[in-house]
């Protein structure tokens, strides 16, 4: 009888622990849901005033004029432009550094590089923005004789610095996960180290590397402080990489403080937030899809 009682309390304890974990897991889902509801509740009322097409593809963003104009196309282009050029820099550098760290670097250098990249990841974005404003901006302005050094180029470089650690560390894990047997098979077939890296190791790690790239992009497009500080802030469609832009995140951060509560401007900024959310969600879904798809076939046809 006594024994049974003991096992009963043990059982209730397990149930309690399970429920506790379940509660915390559910809490994060709940919080996410609440934020989402809030985002949509504050953003959607805008579309009583203007149509979705006018909002997304309108080329004039004059939210404080009378009558106001809420076309965020220049902001979308701004976000995409800085992200695109940031990736142009960060993707090759991130992947190459991952390959170097995982496959080529000798022990000592490998450890140093890894910690430097980790430090880079830990750099507060406001510090990086400051660096862009004070050092890179004036340098760009002087070297290329520009009206302003705060532009797409500057933002792309800063965002690239932020995306490199993400891309590098996830790619590195993917490279480590390539089975040793593939490498041995390649060497035994008379391949050199570099042929093995290019023809076997990188293709076998491609799903992880693609995930890394997309998460790096998501990181860049959602970044706020850096672009607020160094992208220049002009809500116009850029014509060159030396033009200033106003990415969506920068616009929200800069204007939210001054937009009257539940005004058209206020709703427009939330609606911009929805667009941003949809874009990052898409990136994450694509990353998920790619890594699952490759996992099933073992990147069979590459």
């Amino acid at each position: 009888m006594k024994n049974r009682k003991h096992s009963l309390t043990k059982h209730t304890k397990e149930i309690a622990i399970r429920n506790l974990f379940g509660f915390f897991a559910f809490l994060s889902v709940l919080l996410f849901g609440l934020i989402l509801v809030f985002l949509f509740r504050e953003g959607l009322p805008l579309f009583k005033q203007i149509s979705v097409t006018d909002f997304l593809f309108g080329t004039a963003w004059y939210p404080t004029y009378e009558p106001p104009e809420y076309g965020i196309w220049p902001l979308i282009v701004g976000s995409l432009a800085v992200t695109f050029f940031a990736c142009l820099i960060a993707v090759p550098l991130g992947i190459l550094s991952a390959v170097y760290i995982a496959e080529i670097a000798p022990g000592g250098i490998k450890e140093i590089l890894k910690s430097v990249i980790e430090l880079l990841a830990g750099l507060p974005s406001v510090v990086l923005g400051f660096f862009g404003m004070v050092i890179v901006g004036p340098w760009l302005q002087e070297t290329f004789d520009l009206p302003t050094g705060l532009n797409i180029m500057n933002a792309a470089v800063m965002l690239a610095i932020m995306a490199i650690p993400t891309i590098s560390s996830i790619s590195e894990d993917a490279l480590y996960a390539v089975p040793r047997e593939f490498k041995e098979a390649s060497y035994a077939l008379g391949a050199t180290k570099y042929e093995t890296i290019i023809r076997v190791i990188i293709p076998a790690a491609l799903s992880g590397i693609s995930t890394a790239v997309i998460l790096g992009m998501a990181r860049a497009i959602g970044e706020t402080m850096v672009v607020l500080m160094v992208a220049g802030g002009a809500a116009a469609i850029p014509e060159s990489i030396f033009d200033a832009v106003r990415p969506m995140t920068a616009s929200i951060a800069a204007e939210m403080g001054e937009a009257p509560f539940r005004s058209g401007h206020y709703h427009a900024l939330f609606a911009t937030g929805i667009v941003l959310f949809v874009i990052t969600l898409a990136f994450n879904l694509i990353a998920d899809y790619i890594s699952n798809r490759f996992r099933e076939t073992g990147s069979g046809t590459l």
Partner: protein
Amino acid sequence: MEKDFIVRTKNVDFFYGAFRALSDVTVDFEKNKVTALIGPSGCGKSTLLRLLNRMNDLIDGTRVEGEILLEGRNIYAPDVDPVEIRQRIGMVFQKPNPFPKSIYNNITYAPKLSGIVDSEEIEALVEESLRQAVLWDEVKDILTKSAMTLSGGQQQRLCIARALAMKPDVILMDEPSSALDPISTAKIEELIDTLKKHYTIIIVTHNMQQAARISEYTGFFYLGKLIEFNATEKIFTNPDVKQTEDYITGRFG
């Protein structure tokens, strides 16, 4: 007739760091014959095999002493490129390890590396290698499918075909059928029997019957030493050394 030895080792010692895995191994492998290496686990069979195509170079802190000759040339001489040695001495591993690529691209891997670009030549080579490995009929309609979709036995024959496509002189096999079912094992053994017309085969196996069935020569290793090397028939009926007899009759240790 003078015997033609394609690979010979002379007084070979091998070290993993301070650990001596092989001591004073001298053995000659005859051309176009099957030689089996047997012995208890950890006695250095795989180590010797991997020495012959310089795969041990990939492990840090290893050291070789003595000479290993491929057609009279020391493959550990400073001016020898290990890549060239590996192209002449193919290897099949214990666990089938096809690349996660299509069947076709698995076979073309080595030929493309060695610079063959003519697509007709490559296609012919793919068919020839797969036929030699007795896999052609099973895969000829699915060449573009991932090699990972094949069964374990098919994968191992694909790995053999992949090595054959390199046109090696010698093929090293490290327990090639230990991960396979009896039917696949029988297929691999048949395959070895046909391959020895054109290739020298050196095979490590834990399966005594297999060694007896497929090989002309057998070497018995124990604790890093070559205890006995003889014609397979002699090893299995009337070995010179007592230890050999104990091992093959299962009375060992």
